């Protein structure tokens, strides 16, 4: 058996390997598309963009890479990484491997915000803002109810409050869909609910980056405390952990990054559910390794899915459809054969 120092060194190798893998995927994703761009040109565009110079390439190539594909690749990386990290956090916190980042209603709340904004004919930035706020509000409501109920297992209470408030918010979404203009607004709503990175701009990336960084901070800082939290509330308390505060910080972080992701990409299901399992299979349950693994795998996975979404068919396939088609069978396989992820 390896000792701790050896496995630490192994971790660094894995992280470097993972980053390289994701970088290769990012290059491939920028090269592939209706207008294919050779890797040398991509590198020149990126270098020029970072140093502020003029690249020695076809201006169309420059526009495609710098204004379209680069923001999209970065957004995909961020969203995949964020959803996977949030999923890993919630699965540990709620001690349930079937939990996904929307367990506390963040996706439902974000959907209602976005759907309402589409219904009210708001511009795109307002749709994003309302979605973001809707997600946070929904989780705040769930958390409020969950902590107001005393004398019960706080974790179970939160989950059940999430189910109930999710249902109420879902009713709101259905109502807006019924009221929406079926030719103009309903397709937009449906498309949003299936998730897409089609319209992502550099400004979008800039607007969610702070939220994702702030949200990841508590997850990274509490990386070992997270392990103790998987023991459940009472055991963690007897070990001297302030479970209420720790849980609040972790939920805050996971909710913030999920809400930020959903606000620009819509509902992209399955990533936050499946990727943490893959990460756990690869590096084990220790959150100190699980978090970086989930970030890298989630980002890489989202790049692959998004590249497929925009290149396999003539029209773009919504992300939610692809992630479900790829994710659900994989999850079934895991259910049948994967024994190490959980028991």
């Amino acid at each position, binding site marked *: *058996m390896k000792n*701790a120092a050896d496995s630490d060194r192994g971790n660094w190798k894995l992280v470097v390997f993972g980053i390289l893998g994701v970088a290769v995927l990012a290059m491939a994703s920028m090269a592939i598309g209706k207008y294919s761009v050779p890797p040398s040109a991509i590198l020149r565009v990126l270098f020029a963009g970072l140093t502020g110079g003029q690249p020695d390439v076809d201006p169309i190539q420059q526009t495609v890479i710098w204004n379209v594909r680069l923001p999209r690749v970065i957004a995909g990386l961020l969203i995949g990484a964020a959803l996977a990290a949030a999923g890993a956090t919630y699965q*540990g916190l709620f*001690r*349930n*491997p079937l939990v996904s980042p929307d367990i506390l209603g963040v996706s439902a709340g974000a959907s209602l915000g976005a759907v309402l904004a589409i219904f009210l004919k708001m511009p795109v930035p307002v749709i994003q803002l309302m979605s973001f706020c809707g997600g946070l509000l929904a989780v705040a409501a769930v958390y409020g109810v969950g902590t107001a109920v*005393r*004398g019960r297992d706080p974790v179970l209470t939160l989950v059940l409050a999430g189910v109930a408030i999710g249902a109420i918010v879902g009713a709101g979404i259905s109502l807006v869909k019924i009221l929406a203009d079926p030719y103009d607004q309903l397709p937009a709503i449906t498309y949003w609910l299936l998730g897409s990175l089609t319209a992502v701009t550099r400004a979008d990336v800039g607007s969610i980056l702070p939220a994702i960084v702030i949200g990841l901070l508590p997850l990274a*800082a*509490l*990386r*070992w*405390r997270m*392990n*103790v939290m*998987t*023991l459940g509330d*009472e*055991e*963690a*308390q*007897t*070990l*001297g*952990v*302030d479970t209420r505060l*720790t849980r609040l910080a972790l939920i805050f972080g996971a909710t913030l990054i999920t809400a930020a992701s959903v606000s620009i990409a819509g509902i992209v299901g399955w990533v936050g559910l499946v990727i943490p399992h893959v990460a*756990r299979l690869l590096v*084990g*349950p*220790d959150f*100190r390794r699980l978090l970086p693994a989930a970030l890298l795998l989630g980002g890489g996975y989202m790049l692959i899915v998004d590249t497929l979404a925009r290149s396999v068919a003539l029209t773009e396939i919504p992300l939610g459809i692809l992630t479900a088609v790829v994710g659900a069978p994989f999850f079934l396989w895991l259910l049948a054969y994967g024994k*190490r*992820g*959980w*028991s």
Partner: protein
Amino acid sequence: MLELRDLAFGYGTSRVGTGVSLTLRPGEVLALLGPNGAGKTTLFKTMLGLLAPLGGEVLLDAAPLETLDRKERARRIAYVPQAHAALFPFTVRDVVLMGRAVQVAPFSAPGRNDREVAAAALERLGMAHLSDRPYTEISGGERQMTLIARALAQQPKVLVMDEPTASLDYGNQMRVLGHVRRLAREGMAVVLSTHNPDHVFMVADRVAMLHEGRLAGLGPPADVLTVERVKQLYNIDVVMGVLPGGSSKVCSPRLGPGD
């Protein structure tokens, strides 16, 4: 060390037990015997500070429990839950390391000293060879030992063990009880709950019997754990005695013709 004074305990407004007074001394094993629903678990939760007393008080080193913060409590009193099925396959070493949580700053991770304490706790219980095994893949007895090691890693003065022999096979029950005895000899104060009078005779210096939320008897098992008491607690007729060659009293049920 740990003292209960006229303690009333329960959840919220519903009172489960009342009038419980007892003192736990260093190096002593106190067994808590009582039927299901007698309030053993609720009493433990109150001793651990997970539930606030509904009346009376819990004193830890002469200080009321609620005046000590969560960390102070965790440094002095450790809880050993029943061996449970863990969800995630942490290694035995990692599970024991979690006993160091109170010593590890929130934004930090266990250091060399914590790893040494955890390794020593495993060594002390003869569990070192299992350090790298996933907790999900070891036996029930080994899990119980792992949880005891985790409690030892807290370096407490008091161990509170919730039915440490439940759901273990016969051999593991005896091994766990043997370790409990040894820990007490080394100065640890242990309070454990059990359903088995034999275990009380084997391991306990004193027994506290809980019946319908009240203390039905407290003292050395040989004096207070009688045939009549077992009948009162469990409504079962038993005979008691030391078998030839045995070291402690055993309790044997007499099933009537209708049973």
